[in-house]
């Protein structure tokens, strides 16, 4: 396995990663979208949340047209007269933030439960893994919709729904790595040297279980963004006051048949680029962390 901690293997990891042009394209695209999201308020021509800045007379202008104030809307405007460029930048911000927070919490929660299940085994393992099985047998979108229908909309609730859906993937992977690692002789040597279970688990087993997790966290980050967009599109996600990419797509959906494509298509493209870039990175990460493909 490639170990990301050693200086030699870090260099190896970098050289393996940069060997794939597709993964580099993915990385570049992601840095671009994340960068735009990060400094969004500084570069956006307009604050789409500021009702004073929006002019209803400018609604549904096509890309490149000039508004009544004389400013040009490069990506057009939506039904409320909002500048699409700014709306997409702010929407991207919301989407990436929610995806990042949700997948991070899912990572921590899932890894913890997976480690406990794999190390304790017995009934603890049985209980945790049956919950995982139960959840995996129901489509994740369904679980998220039911949860949001009960809890209501809001940023906190959608993060909760995403974490609920996603922790199982981390738990399952970490448990299987943990089951392999705990049988290795360095763990038994640790027991003989008087190490506590917590020390063995956190200092020795955990670092050796993390390689596959790096792949999953990238994939699940992309999933979280896509799932949040789906939920918002369906109208159970974020409220209108905090438009994410999904909401923008859904808002423009009704105008699509009028030929006013830009309200849906441009946020859709932004979503596509973000998710695609993450998937390109994850795909390549999976290749280089797969021991069968090691040279």
């Amino acid at each position, binding site marked *: 396995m490639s170990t990301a901690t050693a200086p030699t293997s870090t260099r190896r990891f970098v050289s393996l990663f940069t060997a794939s042009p597709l993964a580099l394209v993915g990385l570049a695209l992601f840095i671009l979208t994340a960068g735009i999201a990060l400094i969004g308020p500084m570069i956006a021509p307009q604050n789409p949340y500021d009702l004073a800045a929006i002019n209803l007379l400018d609604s549904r202008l096509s890309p490149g047209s000039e508004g009544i104030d004389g400013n040009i809307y490069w990506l057009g405007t939506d039904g409320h007269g909002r500048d699409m460029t700014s709306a997409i930048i702010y929407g991207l911000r919301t989407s990436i933030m929610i995806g990042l927070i949700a997948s991070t919490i899912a990572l921590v929660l899932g890894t913890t439960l997976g480690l406990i299940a794999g190390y304790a085994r017995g009934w603890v393992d049985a209980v945790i893994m049956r919950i995982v099985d139960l959840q995996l047998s129901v489509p994740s979108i369904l679980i998220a919709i039911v949860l949001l229908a009960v809890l209501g909309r809001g940023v906190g609730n959608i993060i909760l729904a995403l974490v609920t859906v996603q922790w199982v993937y981390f738990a399952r992977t970490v448990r299987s790595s943990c089951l392999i690692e705990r049988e290795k002789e360095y763990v038994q040597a640790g027991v003989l*040297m008087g190490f506590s279970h917590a020390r063995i688990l956190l200092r020795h087993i955990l670092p050796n279980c993390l390689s596959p997790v790096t792949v999953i966290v990238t994939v699940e980050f992309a999933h979280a963004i896509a799932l949040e967009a789906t939920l918002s599109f369906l109208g159970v996600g974020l409220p209108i006051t905090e438009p994410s990419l999904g909401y923008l797509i859904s808002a423009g959906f009704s105008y699509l048949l009028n030929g006013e494509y830009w309200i849906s298509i441009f946020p859709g493209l932004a979503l596509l680029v973000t998710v695609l870039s993450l998937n390109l990175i994850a795909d390549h990460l999976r290749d280089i962390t797969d021991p069968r493909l090691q040279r």
Partner: protein
Amino acid sequence: MTAQEPIVSIENLTVEYALTSGSFTAVDNVTLDVKPGEILGLVGESGAGKSTVGSAVARLIDFPGAITGGRILLRNSGDLASLNETQMCGIRGSDIGMIFQDSLSALFPVKTIGAQLMRAIKLSTGLTGSAARARALKLLEEVGIPQPKARLRQYPHQFSGGMRQRIVIAIALAGDPQLLIADEPTTALDVSIQSEILGLLKRLAVDHGAGVILITHDMAVIEEITDRVAVMRHGKLIEHGATRDVLARPIQDYTKALIRAVPRIDTRMERFVVMDDAPAVSPVTRPQTSHIQADGPAIDATDVTISFMVKNAILPRNRSYIRAADNVSLKVPAGSSVGIVGESGSGKSTLARAVCGLQSIDSGKITLMGHDVGALASDPALKRERVKAQMIFQDPFASLDPRQRIGSALIEPLIVNKMAERDEAQDITLATLKRVGLSEDDANKLPHQFSGGQRQRICIARALVMDPAVLICDEPTSALDVSVQATILNLLKDLRDERNLTLMFISHDLAVIRQVSDRVVVMQHGKVCEEAETDSLFDDPQHEYTRHLMKMMPKFTSGARLQTP
């Protein structure tokens, strides 16, 4: 025999592997030939390129490796190195048969052995139906499978390791090949099965007039059945000749060292002669005191029984168990060393794990230095006593945390057990690393930067920093090359003398056991067959099983003739 045309002539064979940084020459300009009815032994340590030669002859070298030079002339087939893949398919199986180390993965698990054997027969000879079946039966009979008719309908998992290896040999013989390539065919097998398989190979070579290339790391196997031997090192052929001559009068220093490093079963050596480029171990000052103390036993096991459930069921009476240890009693006086020997499944490792508290016992009692093992594991007050028993494991690649630097791995137990402050722990660590033959710089490295032998030294160092009273070694050298094994065994001997260690040494190798133990315990099916002083056990074995083990063990006598001090 000299007039006969060789079955295969390997001329100036070179195999290279393309790496990201240049290329690596695995086989460098090797020239060899095999005559009909002859067994050629290819011997060398890991990384010597001996398996690569075997694979190259069958053209099984895969990308990124490639044959970059030389010819492989097979009788009646021309140069194999120039054939394409389709032509090679016709030769593998019918002209060349291969036997691998792992018989389980060499057989297809979901087809009966009859189906596999008859398919091999059909592909190589064109026989089908009842003719193929008759030939399959004949082959199974020939390799010594009892009741071949019933066995044809069975699946690979229904056979033992030795039986599976016989089936692999039968499949390799399906096309009546001129050449058999056997790559470590007996390494995974117990000694008694090993001797049967080697006998079979010898008989086949003579009966069929086939040439055999036998690849092995084991000098005793070479001496027992090969006619000629080729010694390889770092991809080069360094010595080549009739087995008797090479073993009796080796020319190269490496060959001499290789022969001397083999542990001898017939006598106990003070130290092993190690190779010139083996890591130097700092010299030892021998203690004046005798290492045997009259303090009572360090390890005292009484009527220990350990069972594993092999079939679970809701009703207890439907469950079935196997007994890994059955009423085992064992006393090891402080400062002495006991060797535990037995074949796979004899329960020797389970006993070792139980002694240090890694395995719970069903009944009986084990005390370590006067404390009950169960209490040692659970009572926090006895924690300092508990760490006085340390273990060295078989697999040096799994016994170190791959992400922890060596220095940190040695310091951590000292800090955790409050045995030293950080500075002091640092000093102890560096001193211990030096003691086992490593340098101070090695403390900053990660485990993957070391070879197997070095890792085993690190494991020994990690055990030593705890200042143990009892050291349990579970097959510590069976994953290592003989020359490395010799240095590790020397190190363990010296440490035992220096530190008055009580040693419990588990091995399947009688010769190794003879070198390291004062007393020997022979185990079979979880029971102790015989326990005696080492010399008296080896010179005059009482139990039938002990005699059987000694008889089956390939004896390496050439070492004796070379043992001039």
